[in-house]
């Protein structure tokens, strides 16, 4: 049984993103008035991919925390464990990037980034995730004067290029499945049974 987080990513999130993809395709014509619309839709697409991926990560973290706490004896300690796992979680306020995913999932007992990047293709995907969120922040803060490090990171990509956004989305989709697998294996090992119920 997949996690509810992954189920939601594969259903609700993909439907939302497909709707933006379709709207962008309809707006993409050579007419200048429509070009501006396509650009705005492309930026909305960037923000939406980032938001849905953050929700997936946060949901998966919550689901795993609930399952781990549910397996703890004595029962009276479960609330204290849940507090340790979920209070002040970085994903509650920040984008899903290495700086939030690592510390938050490590609380569950994982060496998260090391496990994720044990597969070389995930390093490239994580880079795409970082780029996605640089552009996401630029869009929502209306600040495209990027700091040198961030400018270097996103060089050659654009939030107005639907091809780039599709690549970011594909990276997020692959990462969602990878992260779900890592967390599933970890939770299953700790509780000694099915990870999700």
């Amino acid at each position, binding site marked *: 049984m997949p996690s509810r987080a992954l189920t939601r990513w594969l259903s609700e999130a993909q439907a939302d993103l497909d709707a933006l993809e379709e709207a962008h395709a309809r707006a993409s014509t050579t007419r200048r008035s429509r070009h501006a619309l396509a650009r705005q839709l492309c930026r909305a697409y960037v923000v939406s991919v980032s938001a849905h991926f953050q929700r997936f990560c946060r*949901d998966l973290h919550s689901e795993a925390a609930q399952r781990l706490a*549910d397996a703890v004896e004595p029962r009276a300690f479960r*609330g204290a464990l*849940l507090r340790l796992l*979920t*209070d002040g979680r970085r994903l509650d306020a920040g984008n899903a990037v290495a700086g939030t995913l690592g510390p938050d999932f490590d609380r569950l007992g994982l060496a998260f980034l090391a496990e994720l990047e044990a597969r070389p293709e995930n390093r490239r995907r994580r880079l795409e995730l970082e780029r996605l969120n640089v552009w996401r922040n630029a869009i929502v803060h209306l600040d495209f004067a990027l700091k040198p490090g961030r400018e270097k990171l996103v060089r050659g990509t654009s939030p107005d290029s639907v091809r780039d956004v599709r690549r970011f989305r594909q990276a997020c989709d692959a990462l969602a499945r990878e992260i779900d697998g890592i967390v599933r294996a970890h939770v299953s090992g700790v509780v000694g049974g099915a990870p999700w119920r």
Partner: protein
Amino acid sequence: MAISFEGMRQELPRSHPVRVKVGERVGVAVGGRLLEATVIEDRGDLGARGQQVVRLSVGEQPRAAAPEPYEVEMPVDWLQPPPALRRKRR
């Protein structure tokens, strides 16, 4: 308050249909005491067997016994009636 807290205990069957809403006051058992908490987010059905999970702010009320406010996510069947509601019922 629209919902009934009757029977909201850990011993309930996990399929118990109680749902809580953002803004509701609930009770959370901590260290043998019952603290008042406010539901600040509905996290969806992320608990065991699809149970609703909520994010709570614990200890924000002036008379709460918690030394400082904190947030925690909990499944609804771990929640209890808020302390004030329990006192009225006695």
